């Protein structure tokens, strides 16, 4: 990246401040820059240059100090929370937050796993890339069953923005024509393996309301001109994405939105800039800018603009708002409703089922597929809810052929055992649930009255847990998973839940949403349907905090669609002189 793009002190007023550089911040920057706005992206962490700063990439396992495992002392002292994330290892640890420097609290009797990625690109470098549209039922769930507030938007409000985003991102998938999972604009899907095809056929026959499809993922299986102009090329099926990808084959800020924004010459980036709070002008009822504390030397500075887009992640954006207090907003900026910080949700990945699959000895594969199969939520309307709980869940699913990692613990000593480990073993298959979490007022985050982090920002206190509804859902998901694998002819089928373990508490799904929810009524919601604060017209929060309900699909694609729609709305309102 051109060095001139990075700034530190700057007293000039920008057109736009974007706080955060992840999935939403990157997209906001691209959209504003392409519309000609003088844009400043503010990132609390260090710069990560595409291709240059991916030290784990292309390094064989034996070249790692500890074969990709993390030094125990380092993990215990600096990554006590982050180490619970599936993607945390020696090739990715530099993209995860340092828990020693990023303390937070949890209320007694609750737990929360807050996974952090504080660097340019944020969690877009680390995400799992699964990309699904929310379905029409998702936007009606709160209205239909009375939990949470009604979404102020419907699926149709987002369709054209989903399409726009998908063409730019590049989503591989199959057009399945399902009502409960609308199709995206697709690049070719990854291949579904023969055992998976057979499980699909058996399950769909035994359970006609359920559909097993190829996972949809933000990988370039066949890049378009749009992608190649940004230096992105075809996915090589390494499935080592979280180390960083020099092929630019998966969507990240670095691979896609940042180069698109930078080529307009309208982008500046302030890295190592921790936003303490927003600067609010009571007379005009506008935000004027942000107060920043330097990540490294703790000095202070300010940036100014006509509009602020908070894209600092659900918890991050909400923390900034809660910490922006004034006479008019003593409980946090744009919080006249009092719901800011409440209705914290995450997904619930705490049920699974797996079994052995006989046969298929002559089936194998080449490459490492960076996605699995997927079964969308089949309980998206009250009349389809299961007995004993509300809402539903989706499943990730895949068939796999076991290898030495699975066979190492089996009986065997000597030459035959050694030879066996060099060959693929038996096939197996598994379903992994991904459940919705109900919006509850009591599940919330607040600022600690006295404890602060090293930047002097009050620490967050999480007070959230999976409730009886979520646990009943996981119990059922484990049971249904078992039934489907048995219907598909699997043997040794076992189901299990894991919500009882502290390290499987909310946060660990890394789909936290809902703490500045959108709604029609300013008395009960923070944002309107354009992610614009009801209280302050030049403040937008298009990240996950805007969600009224969690739905069941991976949320990033919807973050992007909401962001682009919010930018488009602001640009038009400003042109019309209404903001």
């Amino acid at each position, binding site marked *: 990246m051109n060095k001139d793009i990075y700034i530190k002190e700057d007293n000039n007023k920008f057109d736009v401040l974007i706080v955060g550089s992840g999935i939403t911040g990157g997209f906001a920057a691209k959209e504003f820059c392409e519309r000609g706005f003088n844009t400043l992206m503010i990132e609390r962490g260090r710069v990560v*240059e595409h*291709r*240059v700063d991916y*030290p784990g990439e*292309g*390094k*064989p*396992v*034996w*070249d790692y*100090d*500890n*074969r*990709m*495992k*993390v*030094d*125990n002392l380092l993990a*215990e002292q600096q990554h006590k929370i982050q180490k619970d994330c599936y993607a945390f*290892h020696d090739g990715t640890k530099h993209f995860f937050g340092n828990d020693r420097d990023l303390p937070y609290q949890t209320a007694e009797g609750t737990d929360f796993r807050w996974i952090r990625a504080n660097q340019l690109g944020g969690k877009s470098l680390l995400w799992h890339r699964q990309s699904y549209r929310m379905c029409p039922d998702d936007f009606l769930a709160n209205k239909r069953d009375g939990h949470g507030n009604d979404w102020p938007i419907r699926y149709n409000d987002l369709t054209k923005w989903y399409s726009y985003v998908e063409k730019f991102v590049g989503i591989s998938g199959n057009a399945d024509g399902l009502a409960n999972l609308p199709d995206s604009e697709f690049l070719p899907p*990854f*291949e579904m393996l*023969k055992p998976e095809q057979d499980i699909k056929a058996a399950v769909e026959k035994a359970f006609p309301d359920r559909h097993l499809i190829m996972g949809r993922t933000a990988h370039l299986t066949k890049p378009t001109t749009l992608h190649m102009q940004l*230096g992105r*090329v*075809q*996915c*090589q*099926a*390494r*499935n*080592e994405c979280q180390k960083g990808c020099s*092929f630019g084959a998966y969507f990240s800020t670095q691979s896609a939105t940042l180069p698109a924004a930078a080529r307009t010459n309208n982008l500046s980036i302030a890295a190592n800039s921790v936003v303490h709070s927003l600067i609010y002008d009571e007379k005009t009822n506008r935000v004027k800018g942000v107060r920043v504390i330097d990540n490294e030397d703790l000095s202070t500075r300010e940036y100014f603009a006509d509009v602020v887009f908070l894209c600092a992640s659900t918890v991050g954006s909400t923390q900034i708002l809660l910490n922006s207090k004034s006479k008019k907003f003593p409980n946090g900026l744009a919080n006249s409703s009092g719901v800011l910080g409440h209705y914290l949700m995450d997904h619930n990945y705490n049920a699974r089922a797996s079994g052995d699959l006989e046969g298929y*000895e*002559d*089936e*194998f*594969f*080449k*490459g*490492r*597929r*960076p996605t699995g199969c997927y079964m969308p939520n089949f309980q998206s309307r009250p009349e389809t809810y299961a007995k004993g709980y509300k809402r539903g869940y989706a499943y990730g699913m895949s068939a796999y052929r076991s*290898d*030495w*990692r699975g066979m*190492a*613990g089996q*009986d*065997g*000593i*000597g*030459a035959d*055992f*050694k*030879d066996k*480990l*060099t*060959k*693929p073993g038996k096939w197996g298959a598994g379903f992994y649930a991904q459940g919705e979490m109900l919006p509850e007022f009591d599940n919330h985050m607040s600022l600690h009255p006295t404890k602060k982090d090293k930047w002097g920002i009050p620490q967050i206190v999480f007070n959230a847990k999976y409730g009886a509804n979520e646990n009943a859902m996981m119990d059922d998901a484990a049971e249904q998973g078992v039934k489907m694998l048995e219907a598909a002819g699997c043997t040794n089928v076992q189901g299990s839940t894991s919500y009882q373990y502290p390290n499987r508490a909310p946060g660990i799904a890394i789909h936290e949403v809902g703490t500045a929810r959108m709604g029609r009524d300013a008395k009960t919601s923070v944002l309107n349907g354009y992610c614009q604060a009801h209280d302050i017209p030049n403040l937008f929060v298009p990240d996950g905090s805007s969600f009224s309900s969690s739905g069941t699909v991976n949320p990033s694609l919807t973050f992007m669609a909401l962001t682009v729609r919010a930018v488009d709305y602001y640009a038009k309102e400003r042109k019309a002189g209404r903001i």
Partner: protein
Amino acid sequence: MTQNTISNDNRRAFLQRLGGVLGAATVASLTAGTHLNVAFAYSPQTDSASKAGKVFSLTQMKILASVADTILPRTNTPGAFDLDCHGFVDHQLATCFSKEATKPYLSAVNLFDESFTTLAPDARQKALMDLEAGKGFDENQQNDFRALKSLIVFGYFTSEYGASKALRYDAVPGGFKSIPYKPGDKGWGNFAYY
């Protein structure tokens, strides 16, 4: 050749392959900013069984080496001893495990005394098979041994030989597809997660 040089060579090889797709100019920029910390890095040794380790005493290292080589003996391919799996286990326990978490591994090695190392290969194999079958050993001891065995196997198949010669190493597959499997074909040697 030091471990550091091996690391850079492998990374360079990766970057050369990448060059075919992205162009040499881009790849040249990739070589900037990479650095490798070797202070605590494991690198295979040839004499791990003749000196005390970081976790194990000299006697325990001899036993561990003998156990490892019984589980994965030298055949027409190197065995666990040849690949210093015992040295690796010692390093890994010292570096990546809490003291508490090393206990099962220490207990497993302590199931044997030095006389184990003097047994004939067949007798050593039978002794470990009996252990796995629970003949004369309780369930905790079986579990401890299984943990140790798994770490030895991990050490073998994440070594350069294990991952790239004993198995098929495919750094940049180029795509994903199903292929037929013929009896005798080796499995893949690299994974997204270990």
